[in-house]
């Protein structure tokens, strides 16, 4: 195990669900409610993969991706989690490695996380 799955999602309910599913499968989980918190967390403990919601207050997904590049920290794999109609485009905008459209399938979530975090 290299590091935690960092869940960046402003909706508390969804954040908790993701943590429950992933912890239930034995993943370490860190959570952040916005890009700012995520950046702090990443600086403290580099994650294995970031599950990134795009629309968030304070610092959104686009800003976070920019900040990661600017800060010079190693860029972790990013999985965009989006409610947008064109998730692939959202993912491309932040050069993400994969995407999950809300509402996602549990199995799809696990398989994409496993790809980067085990």
């Amino acid at each position, binding site marked *: 195990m290299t590091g935690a799955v960092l869940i960046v999602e402003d*909706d508390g*309910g*969804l954040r908790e*669900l*993701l943590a*429950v*599913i992933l912890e*239930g499968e034995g993943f370490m989980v860190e959570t952040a409610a916005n890009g700012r918190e995520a950046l702090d967390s990443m600086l403290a403990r580099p994650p294995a993969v970031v599950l990134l919601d795009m629309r968030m207050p304070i610092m959104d997904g686009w800003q976070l991706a920019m900040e990661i590049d600017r800060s010079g920290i190693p860029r972790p794999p990013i999985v965009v989690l989006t*409610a*947008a*109609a*064109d998730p*692939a*485009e959202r993912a491309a905008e932040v050069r993400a490695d994969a995407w999950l459209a*809300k*509402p*996602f*399938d*549990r*199995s799809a*979530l696990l398989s994409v996380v496993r790809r980067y975090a085990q």
Partner: protein
Amino acid sequence: MGMPGAGAITVRERVLLELARRDKSDLGETFQAITEAAAVVLDVARVSIWEIVENHGGEPDPRLVCKDLYLSNERRHVSYVPIHARDFPAYLDAVHERRTIAADDAQTDPRTREFKEFYLKPLGITSMMDVPIWHHGQVYGVLCFEHIGPVRQWQANEQSFAIHLADIASLSLEAAELLTMRKRWEVVVESMEEGVAVLDTTGTAIQYNRAAWRDFGERVGGLTFSEREAASEYVDATDRPIPRKDWPFFRSMRGEIIRGEICGFVVRKTGERRYLRLTCSPVTEDGLIKYVVAVGVDVTEEVFFERLKREVLAGLAHELKTPLAIAKGYAQQLRSTPTLPEGWPRMLDAITRACDRMDHLSEMLLDLSSMILGRLRLTRERINLVDLALSAVRRAEQEAPDHRFELEVHTGPVASVIVDRTRIAQTLRQLLDNAVAYSDPGTTVAIEVSTDDDHATIVIHDHGVGIPAASQPNIFRMFFKAHGGTPHDKGGLGVGLYLAREVVRRHGGDLFFESEEGKGSTFTLQLPLAGTP
């Protein structure tokens, strides 16, 4: 003593000239001037103008209606009661012969003697001269000279003077009519809710009505082009700035007729936005565009309401996704527990399916709003339509295990199309879902993929309830449900086929169908084939 004859003609000429010159905007005044001048110049006791009104209350009932009667002795204008002309057929015939009736002895003249007992004798009238007054090529009425005293012989020069006077009466009728028409037109244009303006080639409003001043003059800038340009920015219905050269005025100056386009004005000083539905057309004179006529209706409220509707639609659909993800996620999380109580797996699966259905509905709303807003973007890639059809059929087989699916491919292994994979897959799914929804379990759904020189075609044929003939012309309409309110109503928004065809058409393809009620439907999806890469 000079020559009385020559002097008299000069007076008559001067009178005619003055009458012809005078302002004829008031018909009543003009008629009074004519009768008075005629009475004085020809020295006649009574001169009058009568209109012949042929119908009364919709029935033929000719009447002579007195418009003015000048009495020389009393030097005043009076009126007279209408006369029922059907009692005087000979007179009416004579008038309609359109010649001057010069009745020296009016009480015996066959054309006028009908009036003897009732009119001529009581009033002491001995001689009459009636000249028809023309209007629109018809007899409008008569200019009537009535002489009291010894029988008088009407001279040729008197008759011709009378005819000139009748002509002036005709002219004043025409002038009055033009004026009435113009006034009526002005009232109509002025009271219109639509703004109407005539712009010259510099864009200055040279004529405009009240609504035009309110909506595009006062509110968004002014009368001249430069005033408007300084005051407002021009935008389209979605608030994108319109480049100067594409402003409606310039387009019409280039000859274009603009029909009902929405043009917005953002007032620079206040930020206020107004939207007009504009119709602009060029007016040419001698082959050159001389004016632009602009008709505009303020549709600001409608534009805002429409926007609110769409944005709420899209926003709501989007906001549904997170709670759906939570509900679906927990249902699946619980479902993954190895030891579930009896019945729970089925219940949890039902929750997952319900979430997927809600998600599907919100997808449709999102698609619909982006379609309406023109924001639907296609991410095209080269794909093999056969593969897409195969996976769509496999998915349908899983979801509808009680139906039989028969896939036939007549294309060779590859039918390359350059399409948005997700959208075309959605479209196929929609068509297959419909085929399943409207046919009984156990029946067959046949899918055939083929190609010709230009097109790849997928035909989906079911043996279901079919589409009622009366509904067939409407099935691609937004929100139309062919089976709405019938036992075959499967719910939904009635937008599936609308979206499906729009998506296919945006790819340069088409979607059409044949259907017979009780026998089934055949939907044909056609997409342009991609050339070899």
